């Protein structure tokens, strides 16, 4: 029943996301200019939002298990910082190029991931500590780069850092494929994740190679984060709260939490992006602001209603 409602919500949000905008378009009966706007502009953007939101929520769920910390989210280990620093350095090196920020972000994200990997054998707490310190380092590098960036680049840099789905350089099909692959990988690992949540000793006692699992999980979560950041810049909040929200709704078994997060993150980002391009239309708001404004009340409401 819950899943049916969830599926219906997804469908409703998809239709709603296609229909709203500067002007209302009926998705089932569009022609001429409306059809172009609907299928060539709104649909790819909506699907990008869905895939990016889903990927961020999945990464968040993995990081929370991996680090054994409810405050973990995809950017906690500094991947967002290093990706932003990469994007801005790209902008500094080649200010005229269209792709340079995405390429820079992708390279930057992987540099950040490799740095974290050095600490992956240290156990959850130390790795988290190393990640937080690295994040501070990357944000300092980012501030340095921003101070040196010529004025024309500043706006581009800031809009990228606030998250923007209006001009993703990655093809939608690639993002959707990544969403499917990430979800399947996640489901394959879901049993081990459930055990890991009980504690490393329990997991080892049950015959799980914890070290290998942790490394795999870190790589998977980081790769997914890198892709999401490359596609849409740093969009906060989705990765932190959606996994918790889904645990409140569907219980803590990852068999349920992971698909629910992948869909729920997508739904939240689709809603937020629809609002971003509608609220002050024809102008747009940064989508990162709206994920929190929409998501926080829902989350707090559920937190109060549900027993722990």
């Amino acid at each position: 029943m819950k899943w049916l409602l969830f599926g219906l919500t997804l469908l409703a949000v998809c239709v709603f996301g296609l229909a709203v905008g500067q002007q209302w378009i009926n998705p089932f009966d569009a022609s001429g200019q409306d059809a172009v706007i609907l299928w060539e502009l709104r649909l790819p953007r909506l699907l990008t939002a869905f895939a990016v939101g889903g990927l961020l929520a999945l990464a968040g769920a993995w990081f929370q298990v991996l680090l054994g910390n409810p405050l973990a989210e995809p950017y906690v280990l500094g991947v967002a910082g290093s990706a932003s620093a990469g994007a801005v350095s790209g902008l500094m090196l080649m200010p005229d190029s269209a792709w340079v920020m995405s390429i820079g972000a992708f390279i930057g994200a992987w540099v950040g991931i490799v740095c974290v990997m050095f600490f992956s054998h240290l156990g959850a707490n130390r790795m988290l500590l190393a990640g937080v310190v690295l994040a501070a380092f990357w944000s300092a590098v980012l501030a340095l780069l921003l101070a040196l960036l010529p004025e024309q680049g500043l706006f581009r840099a800031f809009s990228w850092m606030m998250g923007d789905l209006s001009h993703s350089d990655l093809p939608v099909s690639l993002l959707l494929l990544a969403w499917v692959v990430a979800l399947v990988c996640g489901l394959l690992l879901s049993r081990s994740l459930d055990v890991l949540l009980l504690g490393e000793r329990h997991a080892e006692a049950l015959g799980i190679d914890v070290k290998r699992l942790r490394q795999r999980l870190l790589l998977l979560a980081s790769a997914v984060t890198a892709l999401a950041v490359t596609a849409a810049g740093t969009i906060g909040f989705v990765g932190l709260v959606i996994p918790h929200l889904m645990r409140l709704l569907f219980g803590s078994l990852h068999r349920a939490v992971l698909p629910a997060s992948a869909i729920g993150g997508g739904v939240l980002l689709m809603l937020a992006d629809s609002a971003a391009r509608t609220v002050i239309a024809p102008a747009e708001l940064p989508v990162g602001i709206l994920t929190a404004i929409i998501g926080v009340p829902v989350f707090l409401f559920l937190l109060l209603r549900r027993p722990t």
Partner: protein
Amino acid sequence: MKYFRLCCTVLCLWPGMLSAAPLERILALTPHACEMLYAIGASANIVGAVDYCDYPESATHLPRVGGYTGINVEAALRLHPDAAIVMNRNVKGITQLEKMGVKIISSNPVDFEAVFQDILRMGALTGHELKAKALVHKQRLSLERIRHFSNQFGADKIRVFYELWHDPIMTAGGPSFITALIKEAGGYNIFADVGLETPHVNVEAVIRAHPDIIIIPLEKRNLKERQVFWEHWLGKGNVRFAAINPDLLHRPGPRLIEGLELLQQALHDSSVLVQSRP
């Protein structure tokens, strides 16, 4: 007693003498002020400038004392300035300069009349009144001519999209000076109703607004690429393109009138490209 009287007289006259004396050493901390001083023949009074004071060419050789992030107070004071002309008092270092005895003059014109008044004011401050008055007179005549031309065509007929930046797509909104310039040139900014100075808009909004012409401030951008992009969405032949040097439209200085002339030419002349003079 005699000396005492003399001293008193001198002391009383001193402040008056100070304010009447032309400012000899000026820091031009905004490009439009730099251009104004050059245009009224007061370039010899400029002792320092900021990074983006790049017109006329000789202005690029002026000692630099800062950029958009702030003013280097030490570098500025080393030039022994009497005064500094700023656009925005909130830039880092300005308050400190003022405390050190440098006179701060604000210049942030938001319409043509204010630009003219500032040119006259700078003429008075530097002792170049005559040249300033002549320049303003000439500019008033040009503005009259432009307005007359726009009135003939009936304003607001030509729908203009001003693509301030493309990634993300930024434009000029209602409160922006650009919207007023487009109106003066005889056009209508399709985003004039948006209450933000530089709103972020999307392709859908531009398609729906049906622009007749897209103005692209050519600043390290590929015009051909923008043309291909917009023709894909708006249809080939449905929209014209014009590139204008943004310094002519974004700096409220003596070249603004030149920018307005180019804008009008672009709006009413159907030859597709209007390239600005370098």
